[in-house]
């Protein structure tokens, strides 16, 4: 029956809902939930955008809980991590990156101060027992993530206190000992049994562990210095960097030559250089094949150092020689009196890799009376037997699985590098621990391990019209004159600073609940919901009416909406 024409052809309010304009659409908007670049760049696997969002909403404890869902040591990493998240931060293309580390540190410190308990995942206790060998960042992380999943975890370490290289290799000027103590104490309270003074190969064997436990995670670190020489020449009194740093941290002793050259481009090199400089060494040189951060330097080629540490080192008088290597030791007898440097670069070798190419004719000489190699460490094979099998590191997949050794996992500095997963940082070790916990849980649950992976949102996908420039917070730094070997040099943000910094977050790839899509849809086809939808937004697309114009996608500030073919 056709609708009967009425008097004067009037129409009823809102009767257009009978006309479904969704049929006009050839492309439709979807919520893509791309990863913020910070998340993608984080070796620990944090979703910084997510916890910054919670902080923006005024929920600091929830923000911390979100943070520790990946990284249980925010007070530590907030201080020591070179924060590749900030290098990746899209805000860097706009004004300056979010000071994520500062907010992370603030959240960690708030948790300590307020004694927020580490949350566990929902679930019931598991009967399986798991051994974690080595209570450094990787071990702590794995133990924590397993405990979160209700496993019985025994964490053992050769040293009397948990912390690993946090205690043995990082100066208190960067990481105060009370911070380590507080955070680890609280972490262990999640329900982790800690056995100190239990060294693999000395106090326990791998075989014992394997029979006693359902799975074993090896996080023994890389405790043995890598062999170093220059064309076979080695000074008689050679001290390697990590050893000197550990000795200084343990007993406070440091050699004081007139001039020293430290060969290496990592935190050990920089930390040691600063310790020696502050101890009174006149000339402290760092020779590194990497470059200093700058617009012309490839991010892969930059010194693997916390950027502000580098700035502070330069400020303190450490002299850096980037893109150089030591070509020759100038010896007087067995004693070093100088080194010859040559310029080099890491260039493509034509096989998809990069090779170091030194440039003849660029040699220069440094007059020094001490050379300290800090080019990295390898795994101490003690107690590892066949696992190491003569190599410097243990080979694993991304979940720490060691091929041919079911139930045995490894992570942290002791395992071989997997590009993008490991760069020898604390955060990378924490990420290893977290993924190994997933690997172990998957094994014990009879499933395949999973690691969520989302593409990162490119800067170009943001709509900058909706953001205002805002300065990055400036953190208090101890003046040069007041710096010593014990006081923490960089201070943390206060509450208002932390909140202001969190508010700067673009929320890349994640719904800001800004209402733009809802406000700007000409077709009333975006609906707002009181509850958070399953995809993390507060909006639904009403595809019955959406014509697919794409206005919402263009005007979404954070790239949360994208148009896809509507087949």
């Amino acid at each position, binding site marked *: 029956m056709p609708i009967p*024409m009425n*008097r*004067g*052809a*009037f*129409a*009823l*309010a809102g009767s257009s809902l009978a006309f479904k304009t969704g049929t006009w659409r050839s492309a439709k908007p979807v919520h893509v939930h791309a990863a913020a670049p910070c998340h993608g760049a984080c070796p620990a696997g944090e979703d910084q955008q997510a916890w910054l969002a919670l902080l923006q909403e005024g929920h600091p404890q929830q923000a911390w809980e979100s943070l520790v869902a990946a990284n249980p040591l925010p007070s530590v990493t907030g201080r020591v991590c070179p924060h590749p998240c900030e290098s990746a931060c899209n805000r860097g293309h706009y004004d300056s990156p979010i000071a994520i580390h500062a907010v992370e540190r603030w959240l960690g410190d708030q948790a300590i101060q307020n004694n927020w308990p580490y949350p566990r995942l929902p679930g019931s206790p598991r009967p399986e027992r798991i051994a974690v060998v080595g209570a450094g960042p990787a071990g702590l992380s794995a133990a924590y993530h397993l405990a979160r999943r209700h496993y019985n975890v025994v964490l053992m370490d050769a040293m009397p206190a948990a912390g690993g290289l946090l205690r043995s290799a990082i100066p208190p000027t960067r990481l105060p000992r009370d911070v380590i103590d507080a955070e680890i104490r609280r972490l262990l309270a999640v329900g982790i049994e800690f056995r100190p003074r239990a060294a693999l190969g000395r106090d326990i064997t791998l075989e014992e562990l394997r029979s006693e436990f359902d799975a074993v995670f090896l996080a023994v670190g890389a405790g043995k210095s890598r062999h170093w020489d220059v064309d076979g020449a080695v000074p008689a009194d050679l001290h390697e960097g990590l050893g000197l740093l550990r000795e200084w941290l343990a007993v406070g002793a440091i050699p004081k030559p007139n001039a020293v050259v430290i060969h290496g481009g990592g935190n050990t090199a920089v930390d040691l250089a600063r310790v020696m400089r502050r101890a009174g060494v006149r000339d402290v040189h760092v020779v590194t094949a990497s470059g200093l951060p700058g617009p012309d330097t490839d991010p892969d080629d930059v010194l693997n150092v916390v950027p502000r540490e580098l700035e502070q080192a330069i400020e303190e008088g450490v002299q850096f020689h980037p893109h150089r290597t030591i070509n020759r030791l100038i010896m007087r007898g067995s004693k070093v009196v100088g080194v010859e440097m040559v310029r080099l670069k890491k260039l493509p070798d034509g096989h998809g890799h990069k090779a170091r190419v030194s440039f003849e004719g660029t040699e220069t000489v440094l007059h020094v009376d001490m050379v300290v190699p800090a080019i990295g460490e390898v795994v101490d094979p003690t107690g590892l037997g066949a696992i190491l099998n003569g190599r410097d590191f243990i080979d694993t997949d991304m979940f720490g699985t060691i091929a041919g050794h079911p139930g045995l996992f490894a992570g942290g500095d002791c395992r071989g590098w997997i590009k993008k997963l490991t760069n020898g940082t604390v955060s990378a070790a924490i990420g290893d621990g977290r993924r190994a916990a997933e690997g172990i849980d998957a094994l014990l649950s009879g499933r395949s391990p999973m690691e969520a992976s989302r593409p990162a949102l490119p800067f170009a996908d943001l709509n900058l019209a909706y953001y205002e420039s805002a300065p990055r917070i400036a953190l208090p730094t101890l003046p040069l004159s007041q710096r010593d070997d014990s006081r923490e040099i960089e201070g943390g943000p206060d509450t208002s600073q932390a909140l202001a910094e969190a508010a700067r977050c673009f929320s890349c790839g994640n719904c800001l609940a800004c209402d733009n899509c809802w406000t700007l849809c000409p077709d009333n086809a975006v609906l707002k919901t009181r509850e958070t939808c399953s995809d993390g937004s507060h909006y639904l697309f009403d595809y019955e009416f959406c014509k697919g114009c794409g206005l919402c996608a263009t005007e979404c500030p954070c790239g949360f909406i994208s148009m896809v073919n509507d087949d």
Partner: protein
Amino acid sequence: MLEALEGSQAIARAVALCRPGVVAAYPITPQTHIVENISKLVADGKLNTELVSVESEFSAASVVLGASAAGSRSYTASSSQGILLMTEVLFNISGMRLPVVMTCANRAIGAPINIWNDHSDSMAVRDSGWIQLHCADNQEAVDTTIQAFRIAEATELPVMVCMDGFVLTHTLETLEIPDQDLVDRYLPPFVFNRMLDPQNPLSLGTLVGPEYFSETRHLAHEALNQSASTIVDVDREWQNLTGRSAGGLLSVEGPDDAKIGVLAMGSVVSTFREAMDCLAAEPAKLMALRAFRPLPEEAIRSACAGLDHLVVVDRALSPGFGGIVGGEIKAALSGMKDAPQIYNVAIGLGGRDVPLEMWPRLLDVPKQGGGFRILDLEPAKLGEMS
């Protein structure tokens, strides 16, 4: 009460008795005195209405359209070029079935510009879907104005009350202005159930495509046709209250056995009524066509029964065709058994005086035969055909 009033003043008083909510006013000769008089009533506090003095007839029509849609009894008046400027809106008002009442002080259309009376203006909007009622004198104009609101609101169709410019609007004469009580009893307050109302938000004035447009036109046609009975009923009720009929659809005077009839509209009817009485001429029927729209075909046919000749008087013409009323009457009688022979003339164009002596001349037309012509044409003034 019997009063001596100028036609325009009488219309203003009649409108005021109907308690319109909104009146739109714009001057044009010879209508101006109506809105002037209404303005004076408003200024003197004798009429409580929203008087909107607009900037054009186009807006006058638009204002009453809006006001009517918003549920107010609405009135305006115009003439000639003003009616033509309103044309677009007039079609709209009827298409939306809005019960607006308007007085058309009939006047010629330029060029050449001419401010005097004929029916060119209302004829030009013949097809606008309005009811068109013509008045022979100012009493009929007063009574028809009051009836028009009843008709409009009962049928939800707009009504145009046509009264000859100057001849009626500017003539002071004796007439009866009814009491307010009587009009209030006759005309209940306006209730419009399609009213624009946030509590019941309708959309008025929609787009209708080919799939429904024919139906809207059919309904408009039927609505006009069916309004005929309302026009008759409403006039009968008025007659019961006042003793006066305003002429129904068509009124007929003269001896039943007359063989010749004259059909006319407007003030010439009044002159012919006197001429029938005072001039020696053959017996004839005078048909006063009050309702030009809807055209009362049946009433016209039965009035013509027994006539040999019918002279249809037009006060306008359609160049290239002839008299408009004449054409329509021919169509109305087409196929009628023993239909009278129809003759069509136009007279009194652009204010040319229609004297009493026009009556015998009209009765003489069948003897002369011939097609449509302007009867009071003065050939001497034509000069060379150009």
